[in-house]
């Protein structure tokens, strides 16, 4: 039935996909690469070849490295609480006696669906100065004598960015990790319980090593996604003095679409790609190493 002649239909079926793929995904990536060696003049609309000038400017630009630093700090501020909370809540939700699991998971997950622009706007208003809700609460509780100007304190501004992203993603990670926990065979736990392992030992020596692949995946995708943050920082504190929430992609956007430096913007896009590649490889290396070390200890224990 599955004759060779019939297989030709497959080419017809994948044709639209690859036509669109070439036109809208592959071509723009190569075109960007070409543009990164050029300079655009908004007045004459001419594009001029400038060689590696854009890359030299990027690697010597303080603004670029600042934006890399801001992105990494915001990412750290988001990933640390995000994974801690997600892991803790997933472990609790994995217990049989907990009631209302579905409702709780839905509440945790819902922020993940909200438009990032809306999240940025919402957190901008929550943390605004002097009359933002958070400032009102902090001063009403007498925790601070004066309202805090979050946007002009670089570390605080990045912390707020991290909190916003954490708020958006911890529920997603809970669903992800919970699915991983669900997949663990219950017999393993019963056997361990029989051998007298308590809840902590079961978590440390069975659960954590067994959901390692999931955690590696969560980490790597979080690096790829987290280092591309744009919408939330764009809405959050753009008028802050230190521009401490100007992330890499935001810097690229400003260069290309506000200053019309398409060539420099395209070079930035490739710079960002490089940074993301390095840090994904690094996070893959680190999480795999830590994981295998734990697994070994688990065996000898």
């Amino acid at each position, binding site marked *: 039935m*599955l004759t060779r002649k019939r297989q030709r*239909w*497959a080419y017809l*079926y*994948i044709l*639209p*996909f*690859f036509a*669109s793929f070439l036109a*809208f*995904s592959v071509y*723009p*990536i190569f*075109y*960007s690469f070409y*543009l990164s060696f050029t300079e655009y003049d908004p007045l004459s609309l001419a594009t001029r070849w400038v060689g590696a000038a854009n890359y030299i400017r990027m690697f010597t630009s303080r603004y670029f490295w600042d934006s890399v630093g801001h992105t990494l700090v915001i990412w750290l501020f988001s990933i640390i609480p995000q994974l801690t909370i997600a892991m*803790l*809540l997933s472990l*609790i939700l994995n217990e049989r*006696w*907990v009631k209302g699991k579905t409702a*709780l*998971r*839905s*509440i*945790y*997950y*819902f*922020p993940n*669906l*909200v438009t*990032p*622009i*809306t999240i940025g*706007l*919402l*957190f901008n*208003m*929550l943390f*605004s100065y002097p*009359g933002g*809700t958070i400032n*009102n609460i902090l001063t009403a509780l007498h925790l601070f004598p004066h309202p805090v100007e979050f946007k002009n304190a670089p570390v605080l501004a990045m912390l707020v960015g991290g909190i916003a992203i954490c708020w958006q993603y911890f529920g*997603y990670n809970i*669903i*992800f*990790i919970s*699915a991983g926990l669900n997949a663990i065979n219950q017999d393993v736990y019963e056997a361990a319980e029989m051998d007298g392992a308590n809840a902590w030992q079961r978590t440390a020596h069975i659960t954590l090593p067994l*959901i390692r692949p*999931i955690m590696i*995946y969560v980490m790597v995708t979080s690096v*790829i996604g987290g280092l*591309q943050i744009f*919408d939330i920082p764009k809405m959050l504190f753009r008028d802050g003095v230190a521009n401490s929430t100007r992330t890499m992609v935001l810097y*690229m956007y400003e260069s*290309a*679409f506000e200053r019309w430096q398409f060539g420099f*913007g395209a070079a930035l896009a*490739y710079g*960002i790609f490089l940074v993301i590649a390095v840090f994904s490889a690094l996070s893959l290396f680190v999480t795999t190493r830590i994981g295998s070390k734990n697994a070994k200890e688990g065996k000898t224990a």
Partner: protein
Amino acid sequence: MMRMDAPPASRAANRQALTRRWMSRGLCYFILLSIALVSFFPFYVMLLGATQDNYHITSTVTLLPGRHLAGNYARMMQNKNIWRGFMNSLSLALANTAVCLYFSSLTAYAFAKFRFKGSGALYGIIVSTMMIPGQLGVIGFFRQMSDMKLLNSYIPLILPAISNCFAVFFFRQYLESSLPNELIEASLMDGCPEITIFHRVVLPVMVPALVTQGVMSFIGNWNSYLNPLIILTQTQKMTLPVMLASIKSSGGAADYGAQYVGILVSVLPLLIVFAFANRVIVEKIAIGAAVKG
């Protein structure tokens, strides 16, 4: 678990263990509920803010709604016709989702049920592209659309949905496990034309996967910002996120009440989708975890 025939000493120990267990359970519930509260808090502020005047939002701490919803709404509508953006976003997201579902399932069907030359390599390209950061081609895409005189048109925002690598990956996984070869062979035996097999046999089998991917595509499109921002220049054509962002940047004293109403308008449809598709969304993410795990 308490045994009635246990000696008194061990009964006391049992009681102690029981108290300890209830305390640890109480602590767990406390953690679960307080994080739920934190998670809900920004939405609550949004609901309050939409109903209060700017004085109350900026100068007081209150947990009760005010009576200024209508006034805030009127001021927001004066600034931007947000329902226009709402309709633009809705039609764009629907068109995008429909295009994505049809062509992705067609492509996935070819990869799942046909053995053709180069299928392995082509599929490898699709999977590896999923790891490339989306911003890499943005500037080239903008210049390409500008060269083709397609700026301020919906075409550049809809046509790329034909090639959604994530959807193809998901559909292929689904088809390999849920579409028996016998079903296709039987249809061929009945003299069913090839494309009709796809429409009448394959698509119906895929309905659960189509719903799942459809909900995710719709939400992803509803939320997308960078592409509509750079492609659309006319206010008439702007999507909701682009409009919301421009309310913020249009200067003057911040009108918190009006902005909160705008935020409310953008969150409500997601709440409705979520209320109906909660299970579907959670399952889709869990499937992702199962594939990776």
